[in-house]
């Protein structure tokens, strides 16, 4: 995947095109080419979860994904206004104050948005083991997820 080419995909509800090497990391394309700096590069190794985005509705680590692989796919980042579950999770995090420095927060919200409603606290924590937070101690994050699940997250 070393040749320059053109990759077309859907980004936060818009049709876009990335002109450049197919081996470019999606994380870098999002931040540097499309100016969507919400998604963070915490470790470049898939170990922190700060780079989580949604591809065709499923959470994926964008530091371990190459642009060539998202041809024709539907990509959503934390900046999306098109995803009801991301919206309600974002609102719940704000209401619960489930962040301090905010660095892990975009990836955390994206990953949390895919935890099924009705998950127990144990299940919530298990689903989020790949999203590291150095600030909150996770308690407020768990409460935010539970709040979103109770439907108190507010309307998009």
């Amino acid at each position, binding site marked *: *995947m*070393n*040749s320059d080419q053109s990759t077309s995909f859907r980004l936060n509800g818009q049709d876009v095109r990335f002109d450049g090497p*197919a*081996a470019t*990391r999606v994380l870098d394309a999002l931040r540097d080419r499309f100016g969507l700096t919400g998604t963070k590069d915490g470790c*470049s*190794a*898939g170990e922190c*979860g700060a780079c*989580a985005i949604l591809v065709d509705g*499923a*959470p*994926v*680590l964008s*530091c*371990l*994904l*190459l642009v*060539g*692989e998202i041809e024709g796919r539907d990509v959503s980042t934390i900046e999306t206004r098109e995803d009801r579950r991301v919206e309600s999770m974002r609102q719940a995090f704000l209401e619960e104050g489930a962040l301090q420095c905010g660095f892990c927060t975009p990836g955390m919200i994206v*990953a949390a948005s895919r935890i099924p409603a009705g998950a127990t606290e144990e299940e919530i924590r*298990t*689903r989020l*083991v*790949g999203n590291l937070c150095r600030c909150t101690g996770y308690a407020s994050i768990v409460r935010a997820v539970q709040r979103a699940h109770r439907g108190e997250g507010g309307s998009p």
Partner: protein
Amino acid sequence: MRADSLEEALAALRRPGARPYAGGTDLLVRVGDAAESGIRELVDIKAIREATGIERVNGSMRIGALVTAANIAGDEAVLGFAPALVEAATQTSAPLLRARGTVGGNLVTRQPAADIATALLALEATVRVATTDGDIRRFPIAECPVFGSDALEPAFLILDVAISSGEGSSFRKIGARRAFSRARAAVAVRIRRGESRVALAGLTRHPFESAGVASALDAGANGIDALERDLASRPPAAAPDPVAIGLVLELIRDAHASAVRRSAGASA
């Protein structure tokens, strides 16, 4: 580039610096400095049909090299046929990594305590490999790079693994944290017709099969002598945080007991 067929992939892999790219959970972490890693080209192999799928073939189960840890963790057929493999796939890494990390990747990784590979070793898997000369050959799983062997040719592609029945099997690991930790010690045990097969990981540079511990367990002993002999005769683990031998023996005992129960249940 994306390879649309096995032939295309093998042709691409003959080029210097070309590497197969599937989930990328190992490869993309190492690719950064091309001069250091030697990686010049990524060949996306995810479209290769021959490396996909989970299926029963006569008395065996075939698992494609592209099958992910998440696929295995959620597969009822694998759970019944080889529970140790599902346990390994469930306990390894974290959800988003499991969704991408593949069986093939775990057999070529440099991670010293590869969980899925360890379970496959106890399950006496064989691996089918396509070489860039166009041959397709079958090897015992112990000859995969993760176990420290260079028996597979320099340029090759793992297509799938095959395991025979492992209903009486179990996998246990302990790490620094309850989840998302490399195994500081991991044990996989398979019992068949009253005979144990044991694989150990995290204690030495590579996971290995211990005939000595297996015999000891079958004789009703705890395996401490065999374990100490194994550890003394192998390159140590790189990480300088050895697990207390008592803890390892407990892990072995728990995995063995679980395999015994499942084995009894299977033949009931």
